[in-house]
């Protein structure tokens, strides 16, 4: 028990995490950022006139916005040792619910409120059933994935609901000091996510629960309530993402958010967050999201087929994870030469 506690993130998370906060980027993060820079270079070399222009960077960031915000929530859930397969469906449901004729008739404010509430509500249902109903996260969110999309289809009658409320689309299409509103929201989501994860007790507890839930419980954390809230955060992020999708496509549809769960999990994992929980970084997730967005842009600008793009995507996921393993090993930690990730102390940056 002593040994377990000694290794547990509750113990080391405070000290080690605190000590490490000085390093803004550790080796793994540099490797990941290197991949992103490399991709940008490839894009620039193949399309020098159009790739690194202000317009294209702004387009890429706006495209990254929705999946980026979803990935913030996903990072929380995975660090806390869970998984959320329902994010895409919650995005679909929120986008449909906020664009029904009834919601639109109340104006943009209610539309925004509706998206946030629906997302948060679905997330909390996930969370409370996982925490208090003891349903395995994989199963619970799988069920939500099916039923949220089903409800979205029922509400919309499987039709695309066009937004006639122009105030809404104009607000999200606008720019503040040359920066699109969607990009500002994306940045805010990551800043808030980073602060909550690294500078609050809520964040430290999230790491602790993911690292060792039992130890966290014994040290006095209300693990159940905390778990429920973490899924609530994920749902909330989905609601915000739904807003972004609706603003960009000027429509809500039950087909929105298809495969977001896979994209978000991929971004989180190549960002260096452990699927088993307890360790991860929100900056890594952001880089992961950007890598996929840049990749998409490179392929489109060079007029390449989508099938090759999917192959490259898979290769990058595997490559990034291998890179992290090598980097970790090269750091030559005497304590864990065989590198069993679960037993390493939690680390935030």
């Amino acid at each position, binding site marked *: 028990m002593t040994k377990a506690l000694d290794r547990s993130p509750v113990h080391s998370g405070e000290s080690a995490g605190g000590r490490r906060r000085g390093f803004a980027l550790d080796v793994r993060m540099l490797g990941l950022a290197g991949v992103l820079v490399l991709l940008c270079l490839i894009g620039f070399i193949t399309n020098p006139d159009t790739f690194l222009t202000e317009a294209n960077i702004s387009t890429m960031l706006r495209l990254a916005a929705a999946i980026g915000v979803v990935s913030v929530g996903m990072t929380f859930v995975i660090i806390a040792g869970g998984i959320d397969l329902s994010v895409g469906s919650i995005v679909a449901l929120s986008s449909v619910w906020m664009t029904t004729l009834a919601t639109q008739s109340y104006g943009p404010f209610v539309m925004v409120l509706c998206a946030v509430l629906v997302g948060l509500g679905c997330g909390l249902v996930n969370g409370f059933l996982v925490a208090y109903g003891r349903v395995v996260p994989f199963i619970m969110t799988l069920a939500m994935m099916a039923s949220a999309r089903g409800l979205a289809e029922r509400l919309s009658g*499987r039709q695309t609901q066009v937004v006639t409320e122009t105030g809404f689309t104009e607000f999200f299409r606008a720019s503040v000091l040359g920066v699109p509103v969607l990009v500002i929201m994306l940045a805010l989501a990551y800043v808030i996510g980073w602060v909550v994860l690294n500078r609050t007790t809520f964040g430290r507890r999230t790491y602790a629960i993911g690292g060792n839930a039992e130890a966290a419980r014994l040290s006095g954390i209300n693990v159940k309530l905390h778990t429920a809230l973490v899924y609530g955060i994920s749902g909330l992020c989905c609601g915000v993402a739904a807003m972004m999708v609706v603003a*960009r496509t000027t429509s809500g549809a039950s087909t929105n958010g298809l495969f977001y769960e896979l994209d978000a999990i991929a971004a989180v994992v190549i960002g260096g967050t452990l699927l088993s929980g307890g360790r991860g970084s929100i900056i890594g997730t952001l880089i992961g999201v950007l890598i996929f967005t840049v990749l998409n842009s490179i392929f*489109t600008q060079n007029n390449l*087929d989508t099938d090759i793009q999917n192959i490259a995507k898979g290769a990058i996921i595997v490559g990034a994870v291998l890179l992290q393993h090598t980097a970790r090993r090269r750091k030559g930690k005497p304590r864990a030469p065989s590198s069993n990730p679960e037993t390493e102390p939690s680390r935030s940056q």
Partner: protein
Amino acid sequence: MTRTNLGRRGFLFGAAGLGAGAVLVGCTSNEPEGQNNQQPVAGGQGANSEPGKQVTIGFSAPAADHGWMAAVTINAKAMAEQFSDVTLNATEGTNDVNQQIAQVESLINGGVDVLAILPFDGKALTQVARQAMDDGIPVVNVDRVFDTPLAYRCWIGGDNYRMGVNAGNYIAEELKRQNKNNPVIGEVAGIDSLPLTQERSQGFKDALQRHGFRVGPRVAAEFTPESGERQTANLLQGAQKLDALWNHDDDQGIGVVAAIENSGRSDFFVVGGAGSRNMMELIKADSGPVKATVLYSPSMASSAIAMARLLGQNKGLEDLAEHEIPAELTTYSAVVTKENVDNYMDVGFDS
């Protein structure tokens, strides 16, 4: 003290939750206020529309999971209602092939006179359709074709290749009219692995080639507004110069148009595909980039019901010399432009 605080907090949260729930429930309705939301349907034509022998038509189609497929079922039902001598037995749409087979079997057992089937997968439903034909029930096969002509009495469907050809011809002629030499022509396709997308793209390519043009930047979306928006936003960044864009599908077209609006560009025009009412209204308004759309109309379901009725009454198409309904009927992928859009509004579907 703590206890009372908790109680008060719980009460407040509970009330907030209830309030939020009430707001949300009030937001689920999609009924337009004081507006008739009837799907328009192409009317039957000719003296064959006079009532004849009573016919019971069994109808089975995949789940209405997108605007086009939803319109298929709506159109079939609306058409049947126009005939006093038709009883339509429509099953609940499903994307489960086994279930659709079971539905067709139960329609056969129920004693329908004629079947109209849009199979989710033509190959998988061939057997049961053939069974019906063998039992003497004529089958009208809609759009997705069965494996063998023995499984249907009559096939009616769209022409994907010609969609591409007509889109290509329209774009090429329009560009020549504008005196554009060496134009850049973009394409937003649907899911690339589907034969229908491949046929559309091939037709587009062939038509442009005939005019000495070629397809420039090309992306593949997934028939959803979201994918249309994403792929088009990227395409527009890559193509700083663009003269025309063909988008395969009007469902994803909502996203394509949104992406163009987001980019603020107006240096090119867009041609759509399928023929949604939404796009037709944009064409009619003539204020945005959308100048035309190439039909692949779900009104074929209405025609299928009309033909099923004639089959049941042993009648042919009056204007033809043949005494019987033809075995195959391919609908024409007409180009809808500002000039003729009013004639096509009745077949536009809600995407």
